[in-house]
């Protein structure tokens, strides 16, 4: 019994310590965004790597999510004779919840793990130390552009996810199941308010920063050797997915 409490205490202390360390890491890396030299090319490269290269997976996920939502929604709404509300149901589900969350999960799986592996390998092959000895701050050179790219890319990908998802819902609801196209879009226009859109944007900003922080932090402080990088990569995917869902609950309760 005593050891149970001791282990719980040890775990709590370790989580608190890691959280504090990660927060300081984030603040330092973001602070360095305002210190010269500025590296817009590196930022653009990261936006390309995190954002553009995730487009295909976002398109696919969004299209199928919208299609499933429309399919499920249609048969549920039909029971109450409210098929015309399909457009608003699909749009609200996507804009408020599924768009930001699924985009974040996809980005963390595709780009987050790759970032941890990239920075982790730089760490174990002393490339980060090499930067440091050349008087180039490794945090500013490697981490800051990735954090900023996450802040830029994830909201944009979320917006794309929402549009593609709505079109996927349109394909199934209107073209396949025969809901009126006018009803699909007019229901959407009437029910989606700016609070829904703003809430989605805030969520995607928070998720983007969270994913990049977890990915960069785990890579930067990776363990030794290939095994260290491997476990850091796994930790990134697991921790960022859990944090995204936890943040989602907190932010949803805030915006309700």
């Amino acid at each position, binding site marked *: 019994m005593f050891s149970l409490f001791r282990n719980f205490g040890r775990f709590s202390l370790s989580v608190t310590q890691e959280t504090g360390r990660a927060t300081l890491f984030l603040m330092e890396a973001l602070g360095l965004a305002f210190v010269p*030299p500025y590296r817009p090319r590196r930022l653009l490269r990261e936006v390309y790597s995190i954002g553009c290269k995730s487009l295909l997976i976002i398109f696919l996920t969004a299209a199928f999510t919208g299609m499933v939502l429309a399919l499920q929604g249609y048969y549920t709404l039909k029971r109450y004779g409210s098929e015309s509300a399909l457009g608003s149901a699909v749009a609200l589900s996507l804009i408020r919840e599924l768009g930001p969350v699924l985009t974040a999960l996809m980005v963390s799986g595709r780009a987050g793990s790759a970032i941890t592996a990239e920075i982790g*390998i730089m760490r174990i*092959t*002393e*490339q980060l*130390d*090499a930067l*440091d*000895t*050349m*008087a*180039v701050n490794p945090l500013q050179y490697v981490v800051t552009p990735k954090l900023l790219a996450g802040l830029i890319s994830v909201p944009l990908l979320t917006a794309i996810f929402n549009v593609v998802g709505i079109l996927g819902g349109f394909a199934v609801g209107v073209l396949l199941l025969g809901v009126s196209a006018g009803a699909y879009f007019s229901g959407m226009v009437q029910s989606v308010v700016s609070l829904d859109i703003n809430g989605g944007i805030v969520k995607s900003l928070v998720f983007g920063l969270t994913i990049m922080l977890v990915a960069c932090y785990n890579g930067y402080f990776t363990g030794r050797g290939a095994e260290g990088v491997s476990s850091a990569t796994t930790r990134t995917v697991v921790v960022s997915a859990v944090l995204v869902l936890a943040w989602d609950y907190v932010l949803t309760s805030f915006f309700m």
Partner: protein
Amino acid sequence: MIKIIDVARSFNGLPVLQGVNLEAPAGKITVVIGKSGAGKSVLLKHVAGLLKPDRGRILIHGADITRARGRELQAIKKGFGVLFQGGALFDSLTVLENVAFPLREKTRLTEEEIFQRARQRLAQVNLPPETQDKYPDEISGGMKKRVALARALVQEPEILLFDEPVTGLDPPMMNTVFHLIAKTRQESGYTGLVVSHDIPAVFQIADYVAMLHQGRIIAFGTPQEVEQHPNPVVQNFLRGEIDFLET
């Protein structure tokens, strides 16, 4: 000149450096020898400012790198070049871009001047021009060391630190790298601190030799003086005798 004063450092309660005192004279190459795991690389990382000691000071031309922060630390590091054990070349950049990197980041030279200087440095370490556009994973271990040497030299540093510069190389390549270190030192006049356990090959470039044992410097002098050192630990190490405590 590098002056290491009473530097101590432990990792997880295990003492690695226990009061190291060493002076590496300006314009000379000082080689730190010692068994694997003696703390040579840890000492070098302290000199490079990558690690902070628990106790002691490291003076680089009079400035204490262990206490320097911000711009002062950056200024000290600008005078450094470091050749890492594995080369630490950036794998996403070509050989030429790797050598050009410090100039791109730290100078306002034009692209043309940067690449011209980088090519000069690559020629100085006898690297064939056709390798310039290759990536680090496409060249041999010996070539990687030479590219790393060219990168370390490109900013014309006053101090060059070498972490096991020939480990893993075959004897001819080992001698080539040592020859290049001696040649570039003669041409550039930098102060060198080399960490190595490649005995006696490393003596060919050493002006001074220091032996690190159990976290302390137990012998220091010219290569001839260290070879004649009366301490049996030094003699056993130089002769490569079996360490029965480790077998």
